[in-house]
């Protein structure tokens, strides 16, 4: 870790002279691959709306954390999001309503509840940093935390990757192969909730979902098989993360949103390449 720090500080760029930029770079290098990996499954299994809702609904988690008087509301955030994620999945199963209705419903309720909790006494502005996020404020202790969770979650995801992929194609087909289809989906919902909320304070509620979805969506335009898809998504995510971070330094803009704009640019570029390729035959 310190080694990397030293290495980065020798880079002949202006931004590399600042400790907060080196921290942020480390964080980007850890978050991007994980987000890309999850994103490939989220896009394949049509769960983009789900992950979006989880991000927005964490306003309630934040509110609960504040009301409970926690010094660091992160755990309330994570706890609430994981419960909500699993809850949405279970609710959809038991009521047999369509997924988007259940998600939209839970999202509206949680956003409203969160805003009500946080605006008590007219202090909502204090929490607006969660809406936009601040990657540059990340500390080295938080980076270590991030590294450990990323490795654990990434490992778990790879372990379950095949199952979730198959379930996403056809649940009955996956079930017919003697595999339980509930647990992997439940765990996957919980994982999305965990990863989204763990990173909220760096990226921001409003845009975190695009970090999840955009690299995968861009990779999809070019990939011919699943391995290419994942590798491309990781590469695009890393590229956009680093480029966006540096661009935000020079342009003096919010880092998360800048990364998202670069990713959107990448998406547009891959779309163009796909179109060009199709025309070229």
């Amino acid at each position: 870790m310190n080694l990397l720090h030293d290495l980065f500080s020798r880079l002949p760029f202006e931004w590399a002279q600042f400790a907060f930029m080196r921290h942020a770079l480390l964080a980007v290098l850890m978050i991007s691959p994980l987000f890309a990996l999850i994103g490939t499954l989220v896009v394949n299994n049509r769960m983009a709306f789900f992950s979006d809702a989880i991000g927005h609904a964490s306003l309630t988690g934040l509110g609960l954390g504040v009301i409970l008087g926690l010094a660091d509301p992160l755990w309330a955030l994570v706890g609430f999001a994981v419960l909500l994620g699993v809850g949405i999945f279970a609710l959809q199963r038991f009521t047999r309503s369509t997924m988007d209705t259940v998600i939209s419903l839970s999202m509206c309720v949680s956003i409203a509840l969160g805003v009500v909790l946080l605006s008590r006494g007219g202090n909502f502005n204090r929490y607006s940093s969660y809406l936009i996020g601040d990657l540059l404020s990340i500390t080295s202790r938080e980076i270590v935390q991030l590294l450990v969770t990323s490795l654990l979650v990434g490992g778990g995801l790879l372990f379950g990757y095949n199952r979730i992929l198959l379930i996403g194609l056809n649940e009955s087909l996956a079930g017919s192969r003697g595999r339980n289809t509930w647990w992997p989906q439940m765990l996957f919902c919980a994982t999305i909730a965990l990863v989204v909320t763990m990173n909220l304070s760096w990226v921001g509620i409003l845009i975190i979902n695009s970090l999840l979805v955009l690299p995968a969506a861009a990779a999809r335009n070019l990939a011919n098989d699943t391995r290419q898809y994942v590798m491309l998504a990781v590469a695009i995510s890393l590229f956009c993360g680093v480029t966006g971070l540096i661009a935000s330094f020079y342009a003096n803009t919010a880092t998360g949103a800048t990364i998202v704009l670069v990713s959107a640019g990448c998406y547009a570029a891959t779309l163009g390449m796909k179109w060009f390729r199709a025309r070229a035959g």
Partner: protein
Amino acid sequence: METIPHHHTGLAPHVCGECCTRIENLDVSLGGQRILEDITLHLHCGELTALVGPNGAGKSTLLKALLGEVPHAGAIHFLPVPGHGREDAPVIGYVPQQLEFDRFSPVNVHDLFASALSRWPVALWYSRRIRRAATEALCCVEADNLIDRRLGELSGGELQRVLLALSLTPVPNLLLLDEPVSGVDLAGRELFYRMVSGLRRRFDLSILMVSHDLAGAAEVSDRIVFLNRKIVCLGRPEDVIANAELRRTFGLDLVRPEASHA
């Protein structure tokens, strides 16, 4: 129930004739509504049983009960296949009704096999062993040339043959086909039926096929079950086709066209 003698009659010589799957007094209720009533049905090795009936007759529900996806009363017994599969955890091959998926998904045929057969994440790893297994299975349905094609590029018939190959890896105790040829063109249908017929002989398979295509089903199957919540009639295709209620349901007699639903 109109009983037509069926047990071990008219079976081709290749068939061992044993009961592979016994469904006894099966009842399914969903949301307080009885969907299936007192279904008793024995499926034999090497025999293709077609399941026909009007919409809402409970055909797909019966398959789901066999797959263990819906709770049911009554018993289902599977005969263990030597080598793999136990009575309590049978290997069931399943070919779903037209797979609904994103046509632009990068998942290709090999990925489908790898994700079903192996734990090594397809995101990182392509194993030669899996590729060989997939190729072998695809050869059985004359589809080995499709292995590197994306699922979204396949025609309806090609996709169903790929799914058939997957359902045969490993060779199942029971093969369930849920309207496998709906949305497949005529040539694709014929090819699919020919494949299924050949595989039935080759693996001595017991097959249950839900079908809307009565003519095709009558052609290819050994037995037809006409289901409408209960088993209305079952027996050899030519006998079941003669059943009055079935003819009414499928509008085979044009004497009372107002009664036809097909």
